[in-house]
């Protein structure tokens, strides 16, 4: 594993897909610390590092805020809408844009360092591993580019759109595709190691734990595959499609369904530990900490559950989410909503 400071895969904050900052909170936030109303809706997740919150917006901007005060640090303006969650890697913040490029922006100055063309609008989040940026695009290309400079190392073309953020290990990179397959490519060459065919598109981003790759599909099933071979270990049936990426903690894997439930399954065998009551539709990833799970629903609710029992701990009704996940720290809870408001709550 590379230096983690250079390897902050943004989805859920870290390569372990646990969010990295998921503090346990038995009580909901009770006080607004600050809020920022952005120029358009927010589809992506905010990320937090070194007391700076980064968030992209459909108005084409990457915003940065002081996490304590909400004071705006700097704003970078891209030439098209941004749906991609930013990824922090060393001194860079990277994100995909509807102009078809990955933008690498200096974290201190907010200036563009480089752009790397990917051929189609990019809604996935770039994944950085060992000096290489991996990302898929809406036109079905999957690209590996140098973290320094953005030079494209290799590109593969697939028949489905790629919304799934890649999970990168040594030696494979895993991602889902709109053609229904979960793919494992050799990270160094792009050569296919294996692929697993589900019954519908795989929009969610896979998690990796204990030699398993975990991901849900629009075919209503959640899958656990052998990471080396792609062999099916177990699968779990839900009643609607799954676009929510899984989070892993304490031997459980958590994900939301379009049926509105949050599911908690045993990583080892896929047995259901609990499921929440339905909140109608969930497409965003949950955030899983040691004792609590958090999720934002499409219709406005943010919920927290006891990770072991599924008992609801608290809820807030601030605005819906498509792919945004709350950031939960000891000091604050940060929630970005589809209506375009970023909240810092205490």
């Amino acid at each position, binding site marked *: 594993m590379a230096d983690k400071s250079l390897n902050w895969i943004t989805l859920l904050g870290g390569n372990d897909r646990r969010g990295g900052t998921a503090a346990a909170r038995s009580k909901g936030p009770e006080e607004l610390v600050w809020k920022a109303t952005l120029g358009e809706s927010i589809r992506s997740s905010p990320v937090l590092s070194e007391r700076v919150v980064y968030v992209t917006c459909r108005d084409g901007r990457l915003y940065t805020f002081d996490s304590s005060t909400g004071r705006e640090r700097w704003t970078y303006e891209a030439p*098209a809408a941004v749906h991609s969650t930013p990824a922090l890697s060393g001194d860079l913040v990277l994100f995909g844009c509807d102009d078809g490029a990955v933008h690498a922006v200096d974290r201190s100055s907010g200036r563009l360092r480089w752009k790397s063309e990917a051929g189609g609008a990019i809604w996935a989040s770039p994944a950085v591993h060992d000096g290489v940026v991996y990302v898929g695009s809406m036109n079905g290309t999957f690209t590996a580019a140098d973290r320094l400079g953005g030079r494209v190392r290799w590109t593969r073309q697939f028949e489905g*759109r790629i919304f799934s953020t890649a999970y990168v290990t040594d030696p494979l990179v895993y991602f889902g595709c709109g053609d229904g397959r979960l793919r494992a490519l050799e990270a160094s060459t792009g050569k296919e190691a294996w692929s697993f065919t589900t019954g*519908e*598109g795989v*929009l969610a981003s896979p998690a990796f734990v204990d030699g398993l790759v975990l991901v849900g599909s629009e075919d209503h099933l959640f899958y656990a595959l052998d990471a080396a071979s792609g062999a099916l270990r177990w699968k779990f049936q839900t009643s*609607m499609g799954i676009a929510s990426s899984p989070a892993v903690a304490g031997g459980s894997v958590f994900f939301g369904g379009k049926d509105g439930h949050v599911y908690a399954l045993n990583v080892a065998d896929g047995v259901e530990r609990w499921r929440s009551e339905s909140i109608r539709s969930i497409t965003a990833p949950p955030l899983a900490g040691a004792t609590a799970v958090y999720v934002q629903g499409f219709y406005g609710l943010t919920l927290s559950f006891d990770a072991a029992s599924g008992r609801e701990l608290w809820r807030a009704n601030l605005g819906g989410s498509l792919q945004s996940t709350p950031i939960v720290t000891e000091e604050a809870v940060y929630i970005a909503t*589809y209506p375009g408001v970023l909240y810092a709550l205490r």
Partner: protein
Amino acid sequence: MDRRTFIYTTALGTLQVGLLGVPVRGAQAGRNSLRINVQAPSMPPSPLGMPGLFPGRVVEAFHSQALVNGRASPPAVRDMVDQGMKALTGESTAADGWARMFEPSDVVALKVNPSGTHPTVTSIALVREVIRSLNAVGVPNRNLIVYDRNSNQLEVNSYHALVPPGVRVVGLDRRWAVGADTRGGYDPDVFCEMDCFGERETRSYLATVVVRDANKIINLPTLKEHNASGVTGCLKNLAYGSFNNVGRTHVFPKTFTDPVISVMCSVAPLRTKSVLHIMDGIRAVYHGGPFSWNPEFVWEARTLLFGTDPVAVDRIELEIVEQKRREVGAPSLWDRNPANLGTSAEMQQTAQKNRFYREPGHIRTASELGLGFWELERIDHRRLRIG
């Protein structure tokens, strides 16, 4: 530029077209009058425009295997689309049927219905099958646009991700790129203007996808009850999904969906460019629409309806939903009993309650505006059992 005024005179139950002065029946009496000013580009009538090549013809295609493990089955949907298009057009192959309406240079907009829970929106399997059929007659993916008013509803139902690369998926609330040009959602020069309930913004603008980008539209509504308009079929899906600022036409318990839906569909770009309607009834909804939170109100109809005449298709849809409501003991969609009015929560709990006096008469009004056939005796209803 075409400028017309429609005056809905409720005391007389008539809708008058100002330009021609032809009285048209309205759905019900007892409301204030509604004046609708329309501004739209002048367009020559097209034989493909509503009611299209086959006025009054409706093909109802049923396939017992249309749902497998709770999901629309792509092979079954393919059979239904192929057989349905052959039956609609009378051609010996589906490709020949599609070629009656589409050619390779067309830019085709697909109007889906993404409003509601996952099982009650236009199936991805149907959208993909329509795309495949258009590809087969030479229309490339770059000439295809999937659209609706709400980009978040499109995304939560995964249209963005599950259609083939190259197809544009457009929420009209967003801006999007066409080559080097950036387009907005609505055309400021094409609108319907009316004051329904004293609202501040009295104009509803038509989508630029309809006015400028596409030269043909395929309408892919769902077979679904609607708590205001009675059903959300071809006409409602087109009108309220292509014009903005339409929620203002209903304020509990009244709704002006009749005649607004019908008048909007008669506006030249929408009327002229809408050449085919395929209604997704793989699952259908008899109450609580359009969002239909309660799964008890959803049934597995395993059906697609095909037509070029949206009025005829909607009339058949209306009969299907009415039949289902009779089976479960729910009041008719034409019900005017104030005791059956209720809150949104009550409406989602029981099929006996509804928020509005529904206006399924918008379908008849559309007929009177020349968009198709309302009378059942004039509808050529062909039933196919495919598998």
